Every structure is written in structure tokens, then in C-alpha cells.
């Protein structure tokens, strides 16, 4: 009665539906399109060693702060070892310990990561680093180098680049030569850079990581230089001097320590491997929601058994079909048999496909009508007559199925899903309309029902819509809001524009 009440209610429902939808789509990453897959990488560290005679303790540094990536899942495979994970200053560590072990041992750490651009680097500003403790000649060389580099640079970024360039020159640079050992590695050079940067009071650290490739196989850890410019962390490739964190680079651990350490064992060998994988986006979103502690998944359809989910994937589309009926009846003015019969017919069409569905429906209803007209002559009472029609409909369906099987026509078989009671009622109603109001009226209503059913079927068959409604059932609140508004639509129906044409001629306006 009160339109404002309805507008407010519809607005609330819309806001609620859209809000939940946006939260699930944006924050939890529920997929908007069907069959969407998310790229994930399975990373693995195999820690192999030979235990000594006494207790063994192996430490593995594992990913914790990974800009650009989020952890989906991780697990540790360590038969017979006690496992603890802890947060160390440089990141997370897993520690395996066993009192006694014999023979070569391999421990595994496995994790799945996915690209997550919302995940940024640490945003706390680190304290100024302590000055490195050096002997006098080294200290003088360091200061001279810093002074020279500083002269040739404008800011932290260009300072670091220049520094790395000089370190890369190695022996040819008079200052750097003093600091580099024979046979130094890239990691050594990056570590050296952090020492120099500490000398210049710039916070810096080594970030070790792997490049996530699509081809499966072992990967070598690579080192990056992480430098804080007072605002944010900058990343430098020590070899190419390129600034910025490559998109496919996953930071595994930080600091000067190696990836793994062992106490009470020897021959420690760590192999890293990466494998790209595609997972249904829904699976990723679910696990992600679980990890972030959101209850959105607990209360979603995915918590239900698969068979029930399949039922709901159909049921959730019924309101969409019903909305089509509202539109076609109240806005267009199509006449149908029964209010929601076309939706049921449309559901049956899901199995038979549209053209066959319409054909089979027309065949059954026309045959049924013939039988019904014959039964009329027998003067049966109403309920027995309806039952007769129903029985005949079932037999007709059976006959059509068998004949189409013989002819090798598949769609005839799916006929069994037609709602036969509905068909029997349709036949009954159609025959009455036929007798009372004439064949044209009956045909009109019959055709109207079929057209509405076909439109409802097409709407309910939209794959993307089905997916959306299944993953985001809250979108039905929008359907509800639309229906509420449609319920107060008091304008003309499309077909009324023609119907009342006769009222319009010029003399109708005074």
C-alpha cells in the first residue's frame, strides 16, 4: 500500500545483496565467471641430510612475507620428527627434531601459493642499521666508497644502483676488491651490498626467493637486494641492477643465513622445486576464505553435499524463471495456463533442450487433448477423468520414448522429466477453455504458455547467470527487490496499449 515502504525495502534488499556480493567477489575472490581457474604454484623444499649418532635438529626457513603472493595451503612431511614452526626475526622457521635417526633422511615442506596483488611488502619502517664493525683499513675504504657513490647518486635508489654496479665490477674496483673473497657468489655480493648500505645508514637485507615458472622442476634460489628508502622497500636485482620485484619472484626467506641449517647431522642438501597448477577458482576462494577466518564459506552452498548442491543449482534458478513470468505477465500481458506452470515446463526443457522440448510438449498436449475430447463423450466424473488423462499422458510419454529410442533419437528419452501432472492439468484446462471460450482462446493461452516457458528456459539456461546465482545466492535478494517493485507497477501492460487503442480516437479527448 505504501510505496515508500516498498522502495525502502527494495533498496535495503538490493544493498544487502550487492554488499554481500561485492564482499565475496572482491575480498574473498569468489569467481564471477564459470569454470574460472586460478593459477597456483606448488612449491616444495626437500631437506635431505644424514643424521649423526645423537639428536638431530633441522631448521628450514619458510615463506612468510611474500609481496604479490599469498599462501593458500602448506604442509610438512616429516615422518618420525617433531615439528615446530616459529616466527624468527627474519621470518618463519620450521624446526624438525628427532632424538635418534638412522640412514639418510628427507623432510619435505610443501606449500601452494597464488598471486595476490593486494599483498604488499611490510610497511613498517625498519630502524637505522648498526654500523658494521670493521678493521681500520676496511673502514677507510668503506667510507671512501660511500662518499664516492653518494657523489654519483641522488637518492637511495640511485645510490643502491651505483653501489651494485661497483660491486659487480668486483676486482676492478679498488675499494670493493678489499672486501670480496676469492670465488664469491651472487649472494656474497648482495651481502656485501647490505654491509655497505649499513655503513651509509640505509636499512637493507638480502631476500632469497625463487622464480615461479610454468615448467615443473627444481629451481635455484636467487638473491635480491631489499633496500628501504625511508618510505618503502625497494628491490634490486643484483646482477641486472634492475629495480623492482619481478612479478614471478616469490620471496622465500630473508637474511644472511642459508635456507636450512642442521645440528647433529651432516651432508645437508636442500632442493627447491616449483610446479604450476590450475585450480578451480572456487576452490582457491574457499580455502582463502577459510584461512582468513571468514564464515562466508561455512554458510555457502559449498558446505552442502555435492548431490544437494546440484539440486540447488537448479532450484536457485527458479526465481529467475518466475521473474520472467512476472515480466511477461504484468509488463507484457501474455496469457498463460496457470501461474507458474511455464516455469515447470521450462525446467523440463533443461533436459530435452528447447526445440525438442516444445515439439514434444506440443505433441503430448495435442494427443492428450484428442483423448480428452473422446473421454468427454464417455461422461466421466471430474477426478476419474483427470486420472484417465494423467494415465494416458504417462503412456503417451512412454510410447514416445520407446519410438524415439527405436529411431535413435536421444531427446525422446529425457521426456520422462516432463511434469506429467502439470501436463494433465494443462490438457484439462485447455479442453475446458476450448469448449467454453473457443479454440482460438485455448490456442492463444497454450501458445502463450509455451512462449513464456521458452523465455523462462532461456533465462534459466544462462550459464553465467546460473554460476552467479549459485556462487552468490544473495543475488536472489535483487530478484526479490525487483519483484517487490514489479508488484507495485501499476502502469499499462504492453499488450494493453493495443487492446485499449479503441478508447483513444480523437473524440475520446474532450
Amino acid at each position, binding site marked *: 500500500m505504501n510505496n515508500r515502504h516498498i522502495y525502502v525495502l527494495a533498496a535495503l534488499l538490493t544493498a544487502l545483496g550487492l554488499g554481500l556480493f561485492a564482499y565475496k567477489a572482491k575480498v574473498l575472490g569468489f569467481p564471477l565467471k564459470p569454470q574460472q581457474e586460478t593459477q597456483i604454484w606448488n612449491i616444495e623444499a626437500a631437506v635431505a641430510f644424514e643424521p649423526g649418532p645423537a639428536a638431530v635438529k633441522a631448521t628450514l626457513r619458510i615463506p612468510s612475507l611474500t609481496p604479490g603472493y599469498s599462501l593458500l595451503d602448506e604442509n610438512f612431511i616429516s615422518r618420525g620428527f617433531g615439528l615446530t614452526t616459529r616466527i624468527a626475526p627474519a621470518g618463519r622457521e620450521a624446526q624438525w627434531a628427532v632424538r635418534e635417526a638412522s640412514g639418510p633422511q628427507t623432510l619435505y615442506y610443501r606449500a601452494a601459493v597464488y598471486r595476490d596483488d593486494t599483498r604488499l611488502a611490510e610497511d613498517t619502517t625498519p630502524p637505522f642499521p648498526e654500523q658494521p664493525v670493521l678493521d681500520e683499513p676496511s673502514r677507510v675504504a668503506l667510507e671512501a666508497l660511500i662518499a664516492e657513490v653518494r657523489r654519483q647518486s641522488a637518492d637511495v635508489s640511485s645510490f643502491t644502483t651505483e653501489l651494485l654496479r661497483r660491486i659487480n665490477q668486483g676486482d676492478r674496483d679498488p675499494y670493493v676488491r678489499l672486501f670480496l673473497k676469492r670465488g664469491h657468489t651472487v649472494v656474497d655480493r648482495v651481502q656485501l651490498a647490505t654491509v655497505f648500505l649499513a655503513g651509509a645508514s640505509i636499512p637493507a637485507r638480502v631476500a632469497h626467493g625463487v622464480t615461479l615458472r610454468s615448467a615443473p622442476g627444481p629451481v635455484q634460489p636467487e638473491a635480491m637486494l631489499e633496500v628501504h628508502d625511508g618510505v618503502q622497500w625497494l628491490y634490486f636485482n643484483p646482477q641486472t641492477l634492475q629495480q623492482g620485484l619481478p612479478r614471478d619472484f616469490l620471496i622465500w626467506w630473508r637474511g644472511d643465513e642459508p635456507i636450512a641449517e642442521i645440528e647433529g647431522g651432516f651432508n645437508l642438501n636442500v632442493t627447491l622445486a616449483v610446479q604450476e597448477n590450475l585450480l578451480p577458482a572456487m576452490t582457491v576462494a574457499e580455502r582463502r576464505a577459510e584461512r582468513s577466518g571468514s564464515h562466508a564459506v561455512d554458510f555457502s552452498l559449498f558446505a552442502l553435499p555435492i548431490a544437494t548442491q546440484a539440486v540447488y543449482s537448479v532450484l536457485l534458478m527458479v526465481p529467475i524463471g518466475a521473474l520472467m513470468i512476472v515480466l511477461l505477465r504484468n509488463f507484457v500481458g501474455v496469457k498463460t495456463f496457470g501461474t507458474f506452470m511455464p516455469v515447470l515446463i521450462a525446467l523440463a526443457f533443461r533436459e530435452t533442450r528447447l526445440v525438442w522440448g516444445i515439439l514434444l510438449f506440443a505433441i503430448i498436449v495435442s494427443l492428450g487433448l484428442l483423448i480428452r475430447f473422446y473421454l468427454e463423450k464417455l461422461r466421466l466424473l471430474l477426478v476419474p477423468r483427470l486420472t484417465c488423462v494423467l494415465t494416458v499422458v504417462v503412456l503417451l510419454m512412454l510410447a514416445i520414448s520407446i519410438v524415439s529410442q527405436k529411431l535413435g533419437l536421444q531427446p525422446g528419452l529425457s521426456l520422462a522429466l516432463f511434469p506429467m501432472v502439470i501436463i494433465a492439468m494443462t490438457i484439462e484446462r485447455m479442453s475446458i477453455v476450448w469448449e*467454453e471460450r473457443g479454440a482460438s482462446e485455448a490456442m492463444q493461452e497454450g501458445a502463450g504458455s509455451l512462449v513464456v516457458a521458452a523465455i523462462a528456459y532461456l533465462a534459466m539456461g544462462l550459464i553465467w547467470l546460473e554460476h552467479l546465482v549459485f556462487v552468490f545466492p544473495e543475488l536472489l535478494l535483487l530478484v526479490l527487490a525487483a519483484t517487490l517493485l514489479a508488484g507495485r507497477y501499476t502502469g*499499462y501492460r*504492453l499488450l494493453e496499449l493495443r487492446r485499449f487503442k479503441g478508447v483513444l480516437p480523437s473524440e*475520446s479527448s*474532450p
Partner: protein
Amino acid sequence: MIFDRARRLKDAGVLGLNKRNGDYILRFNPRSRYPLVDDKLKTKQLAIAAGIAVPPLYGVIRTQHDIRSLPEIVRDHPQFVLKPAHGSAGDGIVVIAGRSGSRYRTIGGTLLDADHLAHHLSNAVNGQFSLGGVQDVVIVEYMVRFSPLFEEVSYQGVPDIRIIVFRGYPVMAMVRLPTRASGGKANLHQGAVGAGIDIGTGTTLTGVLGTEVITHHPDTTNPISGLQIPDWDTMLDIAARCYELTGLGYIGVDIVLDRDRGPLVLELNARPGLAIQIANRQGLLRRLKICEERADFTAAPADRVAFSKQAFKYPVG
């Protein structure tokens, strides 16, 4: 094009189905009162109690068993009408105009044996013609002998007069004239002719067949417009009083004019159709608005009729 047409209809004050349902029926017709009009037997009993003339009731067939008593009920009445109490749009009505031996002759001339009629009654009692197929009862009543006035402009059947009554005020009226195409039924969408009536004087305006404006009856070829409906004031009075009878604010009152008994109420309709606008070639909404703006809804029936006759005198502007 579409919006232009919609705007023109709106300007002409045409009432659409959605608006009728949403703004009039839902607002003025309390659900609890529907049974009074949906059950024609109840309507009849109410009308009799209120002193409104209706076709006399001969008997009621309530069960399968009662069907046997039909010959008993109609023994003294060679002509009668069988009418399902819950039928809509004239469905299931059989008009018997006489006998031929043991058989009944319908108004259309078809001969029905007792068996056939019993079957029809059984269908009706079992709810074939009622909304939702619920059990029904069949009314056996007086067959209206329509006034010779309409013989000129009807083909068989009984012409009836439909008056839309809004909160006690008659707002629009038409006469429905059966044609050969409508099979003697006074139903517009089955091909009967509808002719608007000037509420002020009770004379017919031009007719409409389907959506086509006509001036002469298609079967009898007599002119339709300019006919004076007899007892027009009585009809308006009856229609106005049906508001108090039912408490429904938006109804269609169907009245027939009997040769001997004068105007009789055939039935009331809580969801009257909108074709009356085509027959009058004018929108209902404008008249409803006039009522809402100017009428006093506490007035007595006679005052309401006076208001309507004055406000809705042709041409209504």
C-alpha cells in the same frame, strides 16, 4: 512509439489491469468479502435479504446425489438456468428454454438428454468450472425473459447491463449484446457487442465489436446507439445499493432486464473486466478520479445515484 501510446492512454484516463489490481481491487475490496460475490448462491441470498430483485431461485444441487432431484426441482418450470455458484465468466451456465419429450432444449436449440445434463451437473458439482477446481454447487433458477427492447439488437441469449460501482457510485455502464459469434453469450471477448451507456440518461452510445467501433448489430443489422434503457434509475439504484450489500469498493454489477420482473441482479464481480472502457470509448480512471476528488463516500444510495447521473452525463469531460 510505445511510450507515446502509453502517455496518450494515460491522458485519456484509461485504467490498466495492473492499476486496477494494485490501486483499486487491492485497496477497496477486502479479501474477506470475496466469498460474498464469488459464490453466486450467497450473493443471491444476500440480495434477497436486502430486497434487491434477483432471478427467483428454484433449487440448489449440492452433491452428486442431488442431481437426481433436478426433474423434481424443475417440474413446474419448463424454462430454467443451471449456473455453477463459483463459475467465472459465464463458464458452465446452461440455459434450458424448453422440453422436447424427455429431452431438454437449450436456448441455442441443442437437444440434451437427461443423461447429458446430469453429466454436466456432475462436472460442475465436482468443480470443473470453479476457480481452483474446488467442489461447487449448482444453482437452478428462473430463466430471464428479456425485454423486447433488446430483441432488435441481440442474437439469442440474454443481453445484460454491466455497471461498475466505485465505493457506492455507479461510474461506468455498458450493455452487452450477444451475437451469433458469441454463441448467445453476453461475453465481450467471445464476440458479443458492447455498447456504452450514458449514465446520465440511460441511452446507449456507439457499440464495439472486438476493438472495432460499430453502429449496427452484426446479426440483426439494427442500430445500436440511442436506445433508451427502461428502468434506468432503478438499475442505478440497485447497483449503488450493491455496495452496502457486499462492502466491496470496486465491483461490477450485472443486471438483466426481465420482461415481467424488471431489472434483476444476475451476479456481482469483484474483479470486473476493463473492456467496458472500450465500449464507452473512454477511460475509467478519469471517472474514478472524479469520484475520489468530489464524491462524499458517506452519502446515501439515492444521493450517490444523483451525483453519478450528474457527474457522468455524456459527454463526461
